[in-house]
Structures are given as structure tokens and as C-alpha cells.
């Protein structure tokens, strides 16, 4: 910037601006990530902490037991379907908000749940779904027998969709806001039906926002342990629950670290696919 700056001045400027933050990221983000990797190569000591011998045994164990494959499959399956349902709810909503006269207010209505405490939003579903809960009160008022809604897989799905819906709507809304509607006019002029006009002139313009929203929903939905923990009644184990158990009751940090590495690799794979389709700029759109 300032051409006259000496190397010493440049170094000092960097030290003052980038220095503290970079130091922090190295100590509290980079080094811990390396520690997770190292821990994943260690073993469980007799007291439950980390100890030699080193090796790939944690990974071998993970990939050789069908139970763990099942957990990964279940997590991806839940992440996928929860995200699909979230899209079904959120996609039309983004269009409605963008076209509304009071769109700022409606947007605030999406942002409020987004910032409402995560645990509150999750436990609210227990109140709705439990046997003496709000939904069963409604069902029995009609003279029907109460349903066993909690704990259940359905409850986990509902709460996951509910929790991440704002994560999808916000980036999608940003994309819908930028739509060039002239393309739709042009499509109509060329004789397109409304469905075809939407599909070929409007939908492609929302794809970047849809991808970003998809990722912002899918990644945390696959990685979460709290929702399955609280609403699945301990019967639904996702990859996040597996990690939490290894660092908690199971006291096998080495194995937990290996599972964390596998989850991280899954996330990186997703991001890599995303970057391939959306380009470098796509990453910035994510936040």
C-alpha cells in the first residue's frame, strides 16, 4: 500500500494487525486439529486417557465393525432427508419473503428463531411431542388414543428440520433477492409455460443460494449430537453421539479422536465438492 514502507515497517504493520489473531488461530484452531489427529493414532490407557502404542488401530476398528458403518450411514441418511425437508419448507418461503412488501419484517421473523437458543428450540419439541405433551393433548381432545411421538426417530427429524430451517432460508433469500426477473419475461415472450419458465429462467439463478443453504443445513445436521441425544431417547446414535460418548462415558479418547477425524474428512469432502461446483467465491458466500 504505502510504497515508501520499509520491510521493517511492513513487518510491524503485519505484527500489529494480523499477528494476534493469527497467533490465536494457530494456538486454538490449528494445534488442536493436529492434536486430534495425533490422538487418533494413540491408544486407550488403563485409566482411560491417551497412551502409546501408536498406530492405525482406531481407524481399523472403525471400518471393520458394521455397527460404525451403520452409524455413518444413519447420520448421512438423516442429514440428507432432514435437509430435503428443510428445502421443501424453506424454498417457497424465501420467494414469499423476497416478494413481500414488508420483507424486512418477515426476514426478522426468520432471524429470531435463528438466534433463539438452540437448546430451547430443541427442548420445545419435547414439550410438544411427549406423552402428556401439547400435540397429544390435542389428539386426545378429539377422543383419539395418545401417540408415542417422543422419544422417536420422527422427533429427531422434526427437531433437526426445525433447528436448521433458518440456516437454509437466509442464504436462499439472498439468492432470490438477486434474481433477474427479466429472464422470466423473456421466457414467457418465447412461449414458455409458467412451469418451464420457472424451471429454466428462475430456478438456475437460485442454485448457488440453494447449495450454500444445503451445506449449512447438511453439515451441522450430520454432526450434531444434541438433537439425537435429547429427542431420540438415547436409542438413536449418530456420528456426533459416538464422539461424545467416547469422550464421555466410554472414556476412549483415542477412538473418539479417530471418529472426529472421519467426520472432519466427510465435511471436507462435502466442501470440496461444493467448491468444485461453485468455485472459490462460493466459500465466501457460505458466511
Amino acid at each position, binding site marked *: *500500500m504505502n510504497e515508501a514502507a520499509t520491510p521493517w515497517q511492513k513487518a510491524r504493520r503485519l505484527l500489529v494487525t494480523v499477528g494476534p*489473531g493469527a497467533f490465536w488461530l494457530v494456538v486454538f484452531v490449528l494445534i488442536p486439529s493436529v492434536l486430534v489427529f495425533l490422538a487418533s493414532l494413540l491408544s486407550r490407557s488403563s485409566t482411560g486417557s491417551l497412551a502409546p502404542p501408536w498406530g492405525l488401530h482406531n481407524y481399523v476398528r472403525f471400518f471393520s465393525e458394521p455397527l460404525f458403518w451403520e452409524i455413518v450411514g444413519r447420520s448421512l441418511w438423516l442429514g440428507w432427508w432432514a435437509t430435503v425437508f428443510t428445502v421443501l419448507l424453506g424454498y417457497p418461503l424465501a420467494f414469499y419473503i423476497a416478494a413481500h412488501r414488508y420483507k424486512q419484517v418477515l426476514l426478522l421473523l426468520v432471524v429470531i428463531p435463528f*438466534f*433463539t437458543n438452540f437448546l430451547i428450540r430443541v*427442548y420445545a419439541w419435547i414439550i410438544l411431542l411427549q406423552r402428556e405433551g401439547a400435540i397429544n393433548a390435542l389428539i386426545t381432545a378429539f377422543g383419539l388414543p395418545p401417540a408415542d411421538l417422543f422419544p422417536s426417530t420422527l422427533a429427531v427429524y422434526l427437531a433437526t428440520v426445525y433447528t436448521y430451517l433458518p440456516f437454509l432460508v437466509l442464504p436462499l433469500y439472498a439468492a432470490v433477492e438477486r434474481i433477474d426477473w427479466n429472464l422470466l419475461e423473456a421466457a414467457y415472450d418465447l412461449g414458455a409455460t409458467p412451469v418451464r419458465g420457472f424451471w429454466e429462467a428462475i430456478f438456475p439463478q437460485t442454485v448457488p443460494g440453494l447449495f450454500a443453504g444445503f451445506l449449512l443445513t447438511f453439515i451441522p445436521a450430520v454432526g450434531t449430537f444434541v438433537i439425537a441425544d435429547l429427542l431420540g431417547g438415547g436409542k438413536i446414535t449418530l456420528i456426533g453421539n459416538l464422539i461424545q460418548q467416547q469422550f464421555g462415558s466410554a472414556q476412549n*479418547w483415542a477412538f473418539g479422536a479417530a471418529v472426529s477425524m472421519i467426520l472432519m474428512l466427510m465435511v471436507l469432502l462435502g466442501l470440496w465438492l461444493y467448491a468444485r461446483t461453485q468455485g472459490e467465491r462460493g466459500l465466501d458466500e457460505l458466511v
Partner: protein
Amino acid sequence: MKRLLAAYSWLVFAFLYLPIAVIVVLSFNDSRFGVSWTGFTFKWYEALFESRRIGEYLSNTLVVAFSSTLVSTILGTLLAIGIVRYEFRLRNFLRYLLYVPVVVPDVVMGISLLLLFDTVRDSIGWPPLSLFTIILAHISFQIAYVTLVVRARLMLLDPALEEAARDLGANNWRTFWEVTLPLIWPGVVAGALLAFSLSLDDFVVTFFTSGAGSTTLPLYIYGKVKTGITPEVHALSTLMVGATILTLVLGVLFWRRR
């Protein structure tokens, strides 16, 4: 078609607000058990305000949120300025490192910091898992969000403004205080608000980095959900939702004035 979209959208809004509404209503319900309405009461709020433990959890939560936000906002703002304004080796590396706390699932973030604190404590006997470690952990994810928000604001800024200040004889320090900071201030405030609410909201990272005596409100709610939810929890949640709405509305008003 338009009406169908409107009807559908309001159903989705109902879905977004129904669970929150049920908790708010139940916090004023006289009955201790179940969801049937037996009369209006403030007694759960009174119980909440009389509970010394909950006061302690609230103060823990706020101590963590304020101190972590202060540090992360300063570090994040400086980092954003450095990344946008200067060319240097490892800049790209730093940019990728910034995305790590954003994309890593919070369980992994939590256990990685737990491993760090544990490793350090094994060798020098410090720090114990406490409010202090929670604060360090929160700063570590907040800093990325603050940097990204401030950076977005900085990129809209014309660097010529800062150069003009320097040409007029202002040193770096004065340029920063009198030109750069006032111009990026809305971004800094937005970043700080985001950092603050991320800290208040965080359960998972706190769960792994807290120790005895460092219970925060989310940890308390989690414990209650595990052992049995009482109406006091509804009252507490209602107040937290109210605080969220108030903060957001104030934030929006602040932004519109700019």
C-alpha cells in the same frame, strides 16, 4: 398461485413459532405438570429470581459472553484489516484457517479444544477446566465470524480514503482511529453482536470445555432436560427468547440509522 404460496409460507412461519409459543404460554401456566391450562401465574418467574444458583449461571454466561466478545472483536477486526489491506506470505493459509471454525461440526471443535487444554494441563498443571477455558474456547470460534463480517465491510471501502489521510500527514495510528475505524464501525458492531449471540447460544463447545463451578445457562437447561423439565425452565427460556428479540430489534434499528 400467489395465495397458495402465502398460505404455505404462513404455515411455515407457524411451524417456526409454535414450539417457542408453547414454552412462553406454559411459563405462565399455574400447573406444574402437563400442558393443560389451570390459570395464569408469575410464580415460576418469582422462583427463578429467587434462585441463587440460576443467578450464578446467568452471571457465568454473561461473564463468558462479554469477555470473549471483547477479545474476539478486537482480534477479529485487526485480522480483517491485515488480511484485506496487506499482501503477505501465508495469507491464503490464514484465510483457509479462518473457515475451519465455521465449517467444523461443533462436537469436533469441542473435543479438539478439550484435547488442547488437557495436553497443556498434563505438562504444566494449568489451566483447569473453568470459565477461563470456556472463554478461550468461545473466542476461538467467534474470531472467525468477526473477521469474516468485518472483512465484508472493509471490502466495500475505498482504500483511497485511507491513502488520502496518510497523504495529509496522518500516521498509521491516526488513520486507523479517525478514518478506518469510523468507516467500518457498523461491521465491527455487527461482528460483535454476532459473536455475543454465538457465545450465549453455545452449548456443545461449552459442554466439552467447562468444569465444576462453571455452569452456564445452556448447560443448566441441558441438565434439566436430562433430569426433568420444570416450569422454571420455561420461564428462563421465555426471558432468553425475549432478550434475543430485543437485541435483534435494537440491532436492526442501529443498522437502519446508518
